């Protein structure tokens, strides 16, 4: 990832963090987050949810006697490895990509598994589709499920193409991102993906996630006797006779369901 841009510097990030409560290091990312980073990224209710699941922690920094092992990473070392992208766009590099270029790059690098139009080959993930999430076994796609377009850029850049990860240039990642968003009718054919446009893409399922774990959501009791009526004990399903279970003795089984 030698072509990864420098995203923030140790020297100025803390100062900005102190001022606005947010670790922005450069003008581009800070611009994307005006006026209130937390409010823009999540809305107040999300911010409140996040505060609940990751509360402020009292950190004791009074330590003065350090082990002193290791070295201080250089800015270039940090920039090369810190590939993460936040929903507000922090971490997106310079560059851009169009939907039409994305169609070409996708066809070469992605279509073999994901299908030319993101329909998904074999058991590989389907990327496009707008089925309702309330149906039985819905296909969870970028269009109906992913909450942030920035996550799409991050994941393609981070992990794709599956057999040759980290082989795409930022412009190509932008282009593929634009193409997949377009396949899902989220952006028009004329859309150009870059560090300014991606954080602004309104994903259909942006507010579809509950961030605070609602469990325990069951209330079974420690009943010890006559807990249910014997007559109510009924087998509703059995694995017996279903041709789904590989053998658990002998060599590894390559069976497929009949």
């Amino acid at each position, binding site marked *: 990832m030698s072509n990864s841009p420098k995203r923030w510097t140790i020297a100025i990030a803390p100062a900005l963090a102190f001022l606005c409560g947010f*670790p922005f290091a450069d003008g581009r990312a800070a611009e994307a987050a005006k006026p209130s980073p937390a409010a823009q990224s999540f809305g107040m209710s999300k911010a409140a949810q996040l505060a609940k699941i990751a509360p402020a922690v009292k950190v004791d920094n009074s330590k003065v006697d350090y082990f002193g092992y290791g070295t201080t990473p250089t800015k270039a070392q940090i920039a090369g490895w810190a590939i993460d992208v936040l929903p507000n766009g922090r971490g997106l590099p310079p560059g851009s990509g169009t939907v039409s270029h994305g169609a070409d790059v996708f066809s070469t690098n992605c279509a073999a598994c994901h299908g030319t139009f993101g329909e998904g080959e074999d058991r590989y993930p389907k990327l496009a589709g707008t089925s309702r*999430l309330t149906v039985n076994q819905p296909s969870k796609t*970028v269009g109906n499920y992913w909450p942030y377009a920035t996550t799409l850029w991050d994941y393609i850049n981070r*992990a794709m193409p599956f057999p040759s990860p980290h082989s795409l240039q930022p412009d190509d990642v932008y282009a593929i991102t634009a193409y997949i968003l377009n396949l899902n009718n989220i952006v028009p054919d004329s859309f150009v993906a870059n560090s300014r446009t991606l954080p602004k893409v309104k994903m259909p399922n942006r507010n579809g996630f509950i961030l605070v774990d609602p*469990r325990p959501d069951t209330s079974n009791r420690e009943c*010890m006797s006559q807990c249910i009526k014997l007559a109510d*004990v009924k087998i509703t399903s059995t694995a017996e006779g279903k041709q789904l*279970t590989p053998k*658990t003795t002998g060599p*590894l089984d390559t069976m497929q369901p009949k």
Partner: protein
Amino acid sequence: MDDGGPKGEVRLVAHLSRSESAGRMGRRAVLRQGAALASGLVLAPVSVSGARAAASATSSPPADPEWSQEIGAGVVDRPYGKPSHFVKDVIRRNVPWLTATPQSSVSFTPLQHQGGIITTNGLFFERYHSGRISVDPAQHRLMIHGLVERPLLLTMEDLQRFPSVSRIHFIECPANGGMEWRAAQLNSLQFTHGMISCAEWTGVKLSTLLEEVGVKKNARWVLAEGADGAHMDRSLPLEKCLDDCIVAWGQNGEALRPEQGFPVRLIVPGWQGNVNIKWLRRLELGTQPWFTREETSKYTELMPDGKARAFTWLIYAKSVITFPCPEMPMKGPGLYEIRGFAWSGKGRITHVDVSTDGGVNWKRARLQEPVLPKAMTRFTFEWRWDGKPALLQSRAVDETGFVQPTIAELRQVRGVNGIYNNNSIQTWQVKADGSVFDVQLA
């Protein structure tokens, strides 16, 4: 491949036959054959079953078994040991139809063969998002940066100089039991519950490293990232990282296995497997979660109303009977020890109850020491089986008082699209012939 099996023994015999003992061995072989013929036994034709029958006939009392009449293999015959070649079926297995590729897939631990709470390293379940990579420990680095006072780059040698701890914890994939949400599907303990294993992990507490780098006041989250091709990453609350997380290089007394992230992985005790980032290369502190693909598109639970639960990291109390089970059927009426495991990501298991009538009546099982927080706990229960059909269940309770739910209760609340965090009570149907099946009850 030298599996140390019969071939190895043939070599040993060949070696010995060149030595002074050759004559003695030869006489013994003749004597054995003579004894077998004299006692009316007919040597079976050469076949596996035949060889077994012959071995058993000559190795039971009063006979002195063949292996008692030879000198065994010497030390360092196997410089790194392995199971007996008779133990062939005890291996990790996969469900070939489950995933698109074996590089982004899962294998299952044979819990039906696990006697104690520790999963041996070779059988620890695997889950890869981009395959098992081979990392040179001399080249590997761990970088800690972001909202810290002193960013740090550590070699493995640096990391191993820090004060270390060894703790026993389970790791469970939240998709364990995921194929059973809609119905009983897989007739196998290994495949319904084998995405859990338990090991003793050795490493430096993450809190030690965070003290060393100095956490800035506004930090709330930590991004953990792997060196694998997927750069697998998850956001974790700083609070948990400062509590009990371990940056681990040791597994059951030896180096981490490549399958478990050699040379270093994150251990997040009691939390779902995928946050225990393997081949750990980077920790970044920030103010908010990153909403990575693995905490939005995946590892989120779709509810019946179309909303999805995210950040459901905790493993709630769960248990399963490991004997009997579909792979380990009953062998006729009599007194049996029912065996199983229980675990909770919230702390210790306080007790496990067992039902043999499908949940009408329950009796307390015996917990075997040690009972450790966020570790697998072994339970046993004596049961006299009368040979009639039975429905076996176990129900775990942890130190928070949480009681393991039924699948019916889970479905009522969460529907069937959730995939993850199925911690329901498992029902094994025992038929009169002793065979055992995976079933679900109303």
